[in-house]
């Protein structure tokens, strides 16, 4: 078995093993072992990638190609470049942290972990696929377990949120289906055979009229899951109702499918369409960035604050991708990673606070620094990373994005960039506001004085996410070299 297909088979084996478990203890041990193996594989993949890259100069490495449906020329084609390797690592870390955070999942534990791992199969498969059909299959596999995860184990208006999220995301993927068929039936524009293979299609000059028609469909199809304004409305409700580990996985990993898909499919395959339409989507992304940040200010529910902050941060990812230059692209990928770790960490911390205090309302909390210092300190660190303090991952990413964006000289780009940059200031406002109200000040509730200490599995989960945030901030170069290297084909193809 090749090194990439293992990312599908190991979770499948984990699920099969989970079917035979009984009770919470067995289920969580099996899931932990499965995710640990995945984590090890992801680390191993990074080293293997460096080794392979030194001798192999192809766009994709570790490729494998198996014919699936012969008549449609559908293949199971897999391969990775630097971008997908980093995202696979992100996924493995967040899934493992998610398992630790769900250590005390009492209600239907087996089903919970099965759904969680099905979701991770979808994500892993999506990041390694090089065939549009296979990619689409994995995309939908990643979305549908969310319905059960939020609906069964969620809180608040969970049925409503679960249905809204599923329908919006599946609706987007339905639009994407039309776009994929459109790309497929024009993949023979240069006289070759019809194909779903991304690398093959990238070589074809698809007619401009077709690109103009299908670029927006492809872009929207992917960007809905990346919380593009005005299609972001599923995200705050969904995140607020989801159980902790699911919020982590969803905001941390699943929303990254959007940016990745936009980059790898919409922009890479339809470059002229991207040039033609970029102004329109830049406006939307800019609005999303600033709108998300301002909305976060007004919220009092911790999860809503973080969800809107995700809308804002991911708006920056789309914004950076649409800037169509190397530095901004690099920033976009770094921002995806940085946001993945940060937001997963936030949701993990919010889950811990909620479990102890039984409220997520900021106004009802206060003085937590005195009673649960570990969680509070990490919350401050995550907050500082989120508002882009140098030394953490957020700074590196946002620096790259805006340096790249500012390279455009005309007025439109300048205005968009300035508006987007101002979101960083607003971010500081809502982060520091929460820190001030919730962590500092007097303890508002007598009951808070006897809060439970942090347990070992919670600490493990937190550290898993915190290390990469600091690591990326302190030593970003090896990561950004890896990404820059893989941007080469995009630079040739799109610019």
């Amino acid at each position, binding site marked *: 078995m090749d090194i990439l297909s293992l990312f599908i088979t190991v979770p499948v084996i984990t699920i099969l093993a989970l079917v035979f478990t009984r009770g919470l203890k067995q289920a969580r041990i099996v899931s932990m072992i499965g995710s640990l193996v995945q984590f090890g594989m992801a680390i191993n993949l990074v080293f293997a990638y460096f080794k392979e890259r030194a001798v192999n100069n192809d766009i994709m490495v570790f490729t494998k190609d198996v014919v699936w449906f012969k*008549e449609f020329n559908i293949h199971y084609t897999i391969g990775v470049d630097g971008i997908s390797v980093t995202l696979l690592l992100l996924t493995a870390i967040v899934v493992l942290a998610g398992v630790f955070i769900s250590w005390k999942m009492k209600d239907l534990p087996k089903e919970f972990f099965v759904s969680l791992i099905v979701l991770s199969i979808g994500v892993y498969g999506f990041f390694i696929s090089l065939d549009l059909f296979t990619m689409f*299959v994995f995309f*939908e596999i990643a979305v549908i377990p969310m*319905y059960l995860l939020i*609906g069964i184990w969620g809180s608040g208006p*969970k049925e409503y949120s679960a249905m809204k999220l599923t329908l919006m995301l*599946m609706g987007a993927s*339905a639009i994407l289906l*039309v776009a994929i068929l459109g790309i497929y039936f024009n993949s023979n524009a240069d006289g070759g055979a019809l194909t779903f293979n991304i690398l093959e299609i990238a070589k074809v000059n698809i007619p401009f009229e077709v690109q103009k028609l299908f670029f927006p469909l492809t872009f929207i199809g992917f960007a809905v899951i990346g919380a593009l304004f005005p299609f972001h409305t599923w995200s705050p409700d969904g995140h607020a109702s989801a159980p902790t580990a699911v919020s982590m996985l969803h905001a941390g990993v699943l929303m990254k499918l959007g940016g990745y898909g936009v980059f790898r499919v919409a922009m890479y395959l339809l470059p002229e369409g991207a040039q033609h339409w970029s102004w329109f989507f830049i406006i939307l992304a800019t609005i999303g960035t600033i709108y998300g940040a301002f909305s976060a200010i007004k919220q009092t529910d911790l999860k809503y604050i973080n969800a809107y902050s995700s809308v804002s941060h991911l708006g920056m990812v789309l914004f950076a991708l649409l800037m169509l230059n190397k530095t901004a692209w690099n920033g976009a990928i770094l921002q995806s990673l940085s946001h993945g770790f940060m937001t997963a960490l936030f949701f993990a911390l919010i889950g811990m606070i909620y479990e102890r205090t039984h409220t997520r309302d900021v106004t009802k909390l206060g003085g937590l620094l005195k009673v649960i210092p570990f969680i509070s300190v990490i919350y401050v660190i995550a907050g500082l990373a989120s508002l882009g303090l140098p030394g953490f991952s957020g700074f590196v990413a946002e620096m790259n994005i805006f340096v790249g964006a500012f390279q455009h000289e005309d007025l439109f780009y300048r205005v968009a960039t300035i508006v987007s940059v101002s979101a960083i200031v607003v971010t500081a406002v809502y982060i520091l506001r929460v820190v001030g109200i919730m962590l500092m000040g007097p303890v508002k509730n007598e009951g808070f004085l006897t809060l439970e200490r942090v347990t070992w599995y919670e600490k493990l989960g937190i550290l898993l996410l915190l290390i990469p945030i600091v690591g990326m901030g302190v030593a970003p170069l090896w990561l950004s070299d890896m990404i820059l290297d893989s941007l080469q084909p995009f630079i040739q193809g799109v610019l």
Partner: protein
Amino acid sequence: MDFSNFLAMRHEIILLAITLLLIVAEVFIPQNKKQSIVHLAILLFGLHTIVGFLPIMETNLFGGMFRTNGLIHFFKNILNLGVFILLLQSADWLRAKIFSQNKGTEFFILLFSSLLGMYFMISSGDFLMFYLGLELSTLPVAALAAYETTNRRSSEAGIKLILSSALASGVSLFGISMLYATSGSIYFENIIQIIASTDLTILGMILFFAGLAFKISLVPFHFWTADVYEGAPISVASYLSVISKGAAVFILMILLFTVLKPLMHVWENLIYLVAVLTMFIGNLFALRQQNMKRFLAFSSIAQAGFILLGLIAGTQLGTATIVYFVLIYVFSNLAAFGVVQAISLETGKEDINDYEGLYRTNPNLSLVMMLALFSLAGIPPVAGFFGKFFLFTAAASEGYYLLVFIAVVNVTISLYYYLIVVRAMFLRKSDNPIPFFKNRIYMRLGLLITVIGILVLGLYSPLYDYIYELSGIFN
């Protein structure tokens, strides 16, 4: 005439023999052992299904009235599989409810007669054989729909079905007579050469189409569907929605792609319109249903609308995707109906609300139902996704992007109501859930086969390639 040619009618002859054998058995088996006829019928039909998979020669009989080839043969096997699963799923119901009224054997006789009619219908080489097959396949089902004589709704369903199908057959026959009037022949092969796009032929084609559209329950010929499904016994409803619909789709496809091919510029517009209407009406009406049978009725109307996307392509790709989709649809829909059947037999409950909290008491049944609904909704990795994706590919290959777009909007709508059932089973908790019960062996086997089908048919790609190869014959 060489008698070995009759081997080409193997399906029909064996099924006829089984039917006659059951009549004899009915006479000779004593009253207190009548229930063993269920085992006998299932055994015989199982053997018939297996024998059906043996290869068959391609030939025309009776001067072209009856024809068979690889694809027709394959489709008969699909129908056989469907009926076999259906028999397994209805065995317990027959033993519990029908044999006590002393009319169990007749159920099999009527069912097999109807299936025989479908064999003849899809094998027909002229309009006479087609019409005989159509009638033979419809009339016994009307009797079956009224089978629960103690239930007034069942009788109502029977009357509704027979009246409306008689009307539809009449309309269809009128259309056929016009086609005959313009071409002077009822043989498909002759008509292909003569048919021209005159007003009368077009009118004939539309009337003929209306008759079959009734069987497939396409909008605006769908009004009987929900009432009949609700009133009829569940086995009969599932027969109507799976087997009967599948056979009608198949023969409609053959006729449109061969005999009526010269009129394609007319019928593609017709199909376009009907497809859009069927998808929207089926889906929108399904949203508000409370009764599982009515729910599945509208869902199956909507599914028929999706099938038309393959029809409109009019190519080998279209043929292949339709047959593939029907195959998958047989398994998915029978799984859903099977669960409804099991629950209804055990508790008498048929409403979506009754399913609340089902997962916590009957996890296996809920999982089967969820797989079936996901397959109907078209969610990977279960088979329904591949079926739908390929249908859409067929439509897109002829440039019908707008129609595909309308279809995917409908897929999203349909996802909503399929999720409503999932929500009831998995998300809701109930004070008074359906208690845990164990299914008997036949029902379990019936559900197991459907689940295997749902999981395997999509991922196992050589199957599609095989169907595609067979489909070349009509294009």
